[in-house]
């Protein structure tokens, strides 16, 4: 491996401007890397001291409380109990704040923008951290409660984290499901079938439409797309009633098609794919035309391989919505019900099923979240072209 020697760092216009502004004293120069090393050592020492204080006062408070509960002789420093509690609390708060500050200082990109104040950054990141914890709490909590044994679910005062981790709730859930009127695997097969067929059809039909809407200018195309954009607002609820009437006229009530066919025409998939395909160079398609390729061939072997992020996103949105349908309004026979419906029935089982309900929530939510985590970079790439033009 040859390394380029003394290769000057590429300077952008912004870098030059920044240098000028530093010279003029308009902004303060960045932290030097050497300073960071010193900062790291100082913060480790500080944190160790804080941790020692917290641990010491924690042990003392615990000892004093347990002695007084059992009515035993109190240690000599019992009168300082409230002082220990305060020290413990302050230690934790200071430690958390400092850790946060240090984290930002070490992890934030060293190249700061010239018009940003460090205090503004700190305030914003602090708020972000607080809100993120608040947003994640219900989800973390439901995962934690699915791991709790029954006596801990009904504790007063309640605790967030389980003391004895157990998978009993999940095994109970499978016992309940195996005793149900329709075998559990049936619900699973139903949902998988609906999700798979619905997504495949949606992908094919919507991407064909998106291709011509994005790349050809033909009478009525723009109008049609505008209607589709308005249809982004028709949620399943507004169209639910007349859809039921239409389904019953088409004799599709109580069949899988009542869920699958509307999913084929989901506007969000068409919308995202059309917006993404507009970014594809028109020259590519014209060149293929000149080479004598048919529209079908252009679509299949030129456009589709090039818009992989878009169809991945369409697949994910479609899977998410189909996986979560309970379809109780259009499907009546028990043997055709979906997984989510069956799980909701268990959740409705009341206090006796609290543990199983928590397990159900975790199973239902983990599937879409896992899919999102695995594909989030592709989704974000597609969403970059999701804007609506006037």
């Amino acid at each position, binding site marked *: 491996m040859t390394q380029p020697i003394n290769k000057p760092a590429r300077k952008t*216009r*912004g870098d030059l*401007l920044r240098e000028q502004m530093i010279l003029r004293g308009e902004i303060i120069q960045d932290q030097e890397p050497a300073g960071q090393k010193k900062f790291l050592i100082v913060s480790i020492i500080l944190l160790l001291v804080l941790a020692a204080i917290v641990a010491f006062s924690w042990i003392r408070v615990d000892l004093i409380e347990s002695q007084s509960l059992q009515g035993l002789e109190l240690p000599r420093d019992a009168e300082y109990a409230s002082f220990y509690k305060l020290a413990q609390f302050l230690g934790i708060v200071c430690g958390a704040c400092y850790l946060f500050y240090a984290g930002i200082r070490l*992890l*934030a990109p060293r190249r700061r923008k*010239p*018009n940003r*104040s460090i205090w*503004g950054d700190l305030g914003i*990141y602090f708020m*972000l951290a607080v809100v993120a914890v608040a*947003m994640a709490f*219900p*989800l973390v*909590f*439901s995962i934690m*409660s699915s791991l709790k044994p029954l006596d801990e679910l*009904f504790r*007063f*005062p*309640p605790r967030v984290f389980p003391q004895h981790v157990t998978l009993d709730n999940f095994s109970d859930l499978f016992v309940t499901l195996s005793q149900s009127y329709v075998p559990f695997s049936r619900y699973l097969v139903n949902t998988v079938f609906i999700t798979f067929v619905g997504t495949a059809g949606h992908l094919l039909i*919507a991407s*064909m*439409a998106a291709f*011509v809407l994005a790349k050809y200018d*033909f009478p009525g195309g723009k109008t*049609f797309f505008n209607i*589709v*954009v*308005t249809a*982004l*607002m*028709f*949620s399943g*609820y*507004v*169209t*639910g*009633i*007349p*859809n*039921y009437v*239409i389904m*019953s006229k088409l004799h599709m009530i109580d069949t899988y098609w009542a869920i699958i066919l*509307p999913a084929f*025409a989901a*506007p969000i998939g068409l919308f995202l794919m059309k917006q993404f395909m507009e970014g594809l160079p028109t020259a590519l398609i014209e060149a293929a035309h000149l080479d004598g390729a048919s529209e079908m061939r252009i679509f299949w072997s030129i456009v589709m391989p090039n818009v992989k992020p878009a169809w991945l996103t369409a697949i994910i949105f479609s899977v998410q919505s189909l996986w979560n349908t309970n379809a109780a309004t259009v499907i009546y026979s028990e043997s055709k019900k979906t997984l989510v419906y069956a799980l909701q029935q268990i959740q409705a089982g009341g206090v006796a099923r609290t543990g199983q309900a928590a397990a159900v*929530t975790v199973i239902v*939510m983990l599937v*879409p*979240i896992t899919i*999102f*985590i695995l594909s989030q970079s592709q989704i*974000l790439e597609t*969403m*970059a072209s*999701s*804007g*609506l033009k*006037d």
Partner: protein
Amino acid sequence: MKSLAGKYLSMKREQMHYGWQKAKRMKTCYLFLAPYAILFFTFFILPIASSIYFSFTYYNILEAPKFVGLQNYINLVLQDEVFLTAVRNTLVIAVITGPIGYILSFLFAWFINELPRWMRTLAVVVFYAPSIAGNAFYVFSILFRGDVYGYLNAILMQFALIDRPILWLLDPNYMLPVIIIVILWMSMGTGFLSFVAGLQGVDKSMYEAGYVDGIRNRWQELYYITLPSMKPMLLFGAVMSITSAFNVCDVPRALAGYPSTDYAARTIVTHLFDYGFSRFEMGYASAIATVLFLVMILCNKAIQNMLRKVGT
């Protein structure tokens, strides 16, 4: 005068002829569009059209629809007190959760924009997860449970702020606030993703030009550079947040019960479900759906006009 009109007509005819020619030349396009268009028409346009039609009739699925004119709408406004409660609740929920959810998802998308990549990914997952977590909002029925085992009650009682448990989900005074909190928790949806992606795509040289032109702090930069270049995403996010703000249904049904105490958590959509799928009064339910749909379209137009003025 006559010649002018004749000229106009012949021009129009020529234009139409030209359009028709073009349409004939482009018939492959229509072939490609056809499968989607047919399904879209059947399951999205036809329902809206027929819902407008049914809203003028009395229809209960078994008998043929009977035309009753404006009777459904008159009943809706003058006789159905529950509907008025539902409208009030829906408006309260929409006016609070719509704008706040929209602004919050933009602000958070903007805040996480300058974080290092792995932290940004983590933040996106944390903020977006509640909106795709299926019915994970059931957790709130444990957090807000009415007895002492409910977490909020337990905490408040431990600090002696209340002396007996509050029935968060059964007391009409507390139902709406709880529902609003839960909906805000779920409000960072597709619009948020669009904002995150859009912010990454803003042209970097615009910011550099901004430094030269004397942009002092991040707020000026936000207003003069970022917002105007984000306009398309802002419009898309607005459509998404209007949809979720008005179509509140699952959350009140799951948390406050269906029907809820004193109808305090009834929204337009739960009212629609009640008439459509419990009483099978399809005509009346269609009238409710039509009203909801009109409100949503008007709201969307108003917001689009507002967003056009941003940053100009």
